[in-house]
């Protein structure tokens, strides 16, 4: 079942991806082909089969609750495109009603 263009655009928004018109057309075709291929798993009866949560014999790995030194803030921010006063800087996300 082919994906619609609207579904491609919806998934691109979920994935926070801006796509060109050519990419939307191409991905619609390619993703539809991959999903068609993957449809074979729908034929398997899994009514009594639990999903794999992990292949490991481990459960609830905890560390001791002991304070340790952290990476220095300047190292944390060294790769940031924009940083101010020890913080990552981003575009304003809330519009204030009136200036305080």
């Amino acid at each position: 079942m082919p994906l619609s263009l609207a579904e491609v655009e919806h998934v691109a928004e979920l994935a926070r991806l801006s796509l060109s018109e050519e990419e939307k057309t191409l991905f619609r075709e390619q993703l539809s082909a991959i999903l068609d291929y993957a449809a074979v798993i729908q034929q398997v009866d899994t009514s009594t089969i639990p999903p794999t949560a992990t292949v490991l014999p481990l459960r609830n790995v905890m560390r001791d609750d002991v304070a340790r030194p952290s990476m220095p803030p300047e190292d944390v921010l060294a790769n940031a495109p924009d940083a101010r006063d020890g913080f990552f800087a981003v575009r304003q996300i809330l519009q204030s009603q009136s200036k305080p």
Partner: protein
Amino acid sequence: MTLHALTIHEAAARLQSGEITATELTQSVLDRIFTLDNAIKAYLALTPELALEQAARADRARSDARRAGAEAALSPLLGIPLAIKDVITVEGVPCTAGSRILEGYIPPYDSTVSARLARAGAVLLGKTNTDEFAMGSSTENSAYFTTRNPWDLSRVPGGSSGGSAAAVAADMCLAALGSDTGGSVRQPASLCGVVGLKPTYGRVSRYGLIAYASSLDQIGPFAKDVTDAALLLSAIAGHDPLDSTSVDVPAPHYAAALAQTGAGSRPLAGLRVGVPREYFVAGIEPDVEQAVRAAIAKLVDLGAEAREISLPHTELALPVYYLIAPAEASANLARFDGIRYGLSVDAASLWDTYRQTRGQGFGAEVKRRVMLGAYALSAGYYDAYYLKAQQVRTLIKADFDAALRDVDVIACPTSPVTAFKIGERAADPLSMYLADIFTLSLNLAGICGLSVPCGFDRQGLPVGLQLIAGAFEEERLLSAAYAYEQATDWHTRKPDLELTLED
């Protein structure tokens, strides 16, 4: 013999005897890289100054130890020049993951594996090319360039760890690290004619590995022979409190265990080898099938007992993988948002900064997988795709669990085909996905596998034999592969690069 052509164990013996120094060895490998890498393009970044500095430090450490009579305690990796795939961080050395979105990113911390190699005194030559975020089977998805197969420069080296595989095959490092999520160590090892090992999930710490699919990713070694793979695995294996998926199972001394592999004409006496009928089907090249069947016959000559087995859910592994891996990738790659590191496209709103940074920073395959994953996880589709895939995964794992109760190892081809031409599969994602059809089921089951050279096709391209064993049974894999290697000379064949360069 030129120094760059040495294996780790050969070089370690000469370093120990004082015949060569780490500086001479490192310089020889760097010269080899400067001669060949313009043609092969295995490295994304070289660290020659760091390498020579580490080599000099290794030489000092060795002479200090010699004076103190403590040379026996030195690591076999002291002074050995290695390469690391560019999805694994080394503090202060740029790490791109083969992506434009991480161009210029300098990791502020060491991965556990690189810290362990540094502690052993290994020398870092540089970071090797990879498909973007390890998503691919040819390195054609690298945002920077495609690595070429040393056996035929018009062909791919496999992927995603194609840079590491090509560097080992062309003697541009003694050994290398890669990562394997669906075959990304074993498939390029097969296509380049070297040894590649995917350890059990939980055997090696992934701290500092840029995550692709967290329930599948594992770091593993590339080497010129089985002994070197064992040496490198010993150096990186073991529990790490920084990775809660690393399991606290003691890591044996893998190379020492090889020495105990039975001697004589039947070193594999008692070994039960399973040959899965579902892995010898349409789509496998006749030359590959012939080489692998001959390799299995050789295992029998060496004393093993081969029997046909069945892994009935084999054909479901590929669709299951291409739902689970993209789903995990869509979550893991959400962190690349233009705020904390990497590319940032300034836009009118925060939302548009995210969309445009990711739209411009990610290549086509990454976008495809992130979208596929977001779709498989989205409201209304989660049960039908992601949950269903995780249920079928349980059946695939159960196939291996059942088979490995009756046999000790499973033998099959690593890849259905030998190295394909650059561009041959790049336009059709599904045909590229088929390159991993024999490798990705192991990642789904969490068990270990190894590719060892087992011949050549009629065009002179290498073929790999894949051996598979249960969780934490790397010793079994390595001893079977070691016995096979001792009885054959495939691993000693080298591509004729001098000839290629003159063309």
